[in-house]
């Protein structure tokens, strides 16, 4: 059980929750989160948006019942967290860009904060949020509103790319990667549906070149060329 320090709305349907605790999460990891007893049934996976001495932060979008319930919670309420979970981002080598689409920007903040150099590409569909926070990191930040953020990135300019976003964007990134020179190692963070979050149930399975992997423990970060997206 973690106590909520704050839970504030940062844009229409977008919230940042700060929950107390000492976690030692790595960049790109996630937690299984629940703010209720039995209903809804499953916990919700949320990426680490940031981490400080007081606890961990999540940047989340109200997508359905579970996130709606999270959004209604208040400072002082208790939330149940299991984590940190997952492999997280690998060490970035050479010139690095972080590309996020929609709420997929969430894991990029904490990752960028730990990188000496990183170009940030943030794609929003209707409203820009957390821009100030991202800019405060001191990295170049390019914002796209309503367009296709991937179009702004020349993959061949980079050695490492971390990409997070909806599945169509990840598929596009795979294609773009395949058509590029191959200079960049391209990593994608998947958002498969999960139940246990710890590798015990196999519902989050990802088809990979060499057999099936579990998004929750072998991922959520995979080499783009390795995964088969549906």
């Amino acid at each position, binding site marked *: 059980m973690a106590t909520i320090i704050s839970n504030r709305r940062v844009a229409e349907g977008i919230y940042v929750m700060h929950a107390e605790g000492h976690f030692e999460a790595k960049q790109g990891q996630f937690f299984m989160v*629940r703010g209720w007893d*039995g209903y809804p*049934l499953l916990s919700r996976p949320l990426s680490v948006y940031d981490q400080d001495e007081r606890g961990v932060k999540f940047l989340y979008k109200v997508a359905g019942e579970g996130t709606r319930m999270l959004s209604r919670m208040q400072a002082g309420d208790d939330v149940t967290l299991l984590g940190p979970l997952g492999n997280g981002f690998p060490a970035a080598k050479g010139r690095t860009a972080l590309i996020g689409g929609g709420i997929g920007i969430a894991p990029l903040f904490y990752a960028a904060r730990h990188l000496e150099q990183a170009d940030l590409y943030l794609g929003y569909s209707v409203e820009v949020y957390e821009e100030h926070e991202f800019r405060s990191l001191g990295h170049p930040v390019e914002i796209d509103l309503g367009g296709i953020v991937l179009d702004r990135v020349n993959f061949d300019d980079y050695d490492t790319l971390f990409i997070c976003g909806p599945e169509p964007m990840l598929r596009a990134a795979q294609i773009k990667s395949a058509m590029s020179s191959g200079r960049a190692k391209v990593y994608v963070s998947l958002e498969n549906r999960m*139940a246990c979050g710890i*590798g*015990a*149930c*196999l519902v989050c399975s990802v088809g990979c070149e060499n057999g*099936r992997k579990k998004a929750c423990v072998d991922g959520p970060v995979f080499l783009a060329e390795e995964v088969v997206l*549906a």
Partner: protein
Amino acid sequence: MIDITLDTACRIGDVTFKNPIVMASGTFGFGKEYGKLYDLSKLGGISGKGVTLHPRPGNPGIRVYETPSGMLNSVGLENPGVQAFLDEECAFWETLDTVRIVNLGGGTVQDYVEGARLIDEDSQKRNREGRQAVDLIELNISCPNVKAGGMAYGIKTCIAREVVREVRAATTLPLMVKLSPNAEDIADMARMCEEEGAEAVSLINTLSGMKIDVRKRRSVFENLYAGLSGPAVKPIALRMVHQVCQRVSIPVVGMGGISSAEDVIEFIMAGAEAVQVGTYNFVNWQAGAELADGVERFMLAEGIQSLSEIRGIL
């Protein structure tokens, strides 16, 4: 001060469970992951992820969908195969102080029998070396019967009988048959298992269910139907366990939607020897340990010294 010793032990044949809480197949891996979250020796037992003779990749596409107080899963028996299980997981199982159950699936009777034989041989070999990794086989007859056009063995008693009989002959390990709630007559199925010499039956496996994505105009699952589990199914599971307990005298292991100590007690009152806990592991990562404690608390509060006082009271 009166010193009360609670008797929570349960028995299947010669196998004794320290308490009635057994983790259900497919929801608990082979125990390693949850073993990092709490001490597995708190548990009565563990039923491992279902294994089949040959490795299986499982189903493609979406494998889980949440429903009101339940979930549909379409894992499709992804597993490394019996031999890999024996080679890679059993060393860990040898170290466990809890009852270890292999959940065995199959596609043809031959696959089932071959799988059981491999497990049995491995078991005998370990025994000769003074080791033990497996206490019980749980035969999952919900798998599609390749010969009967893909209909699961679990539906018609006459079709299931052959697989139970052959597997029974193939192993000396105690045998528990896991029944499907999609069976035409689950009590009849249980009776058949008793007749064929099974030491126990366990039920229920998941209920066949469906979810349609109305925007994409197709099933969420590539396999069309998927298996429903969780609190939503508990009333049905409890009724089936009660029905089966009226028909057989071998131990019955009850499951389906259990998510509290009171739920456990309900199944025991309906006649179950022990229970299994599946989906609730995803809701409460300490499920096993907390339910084991909860059962003891309930017994203390209600002045029950042994579960046998309330077992089958209905």
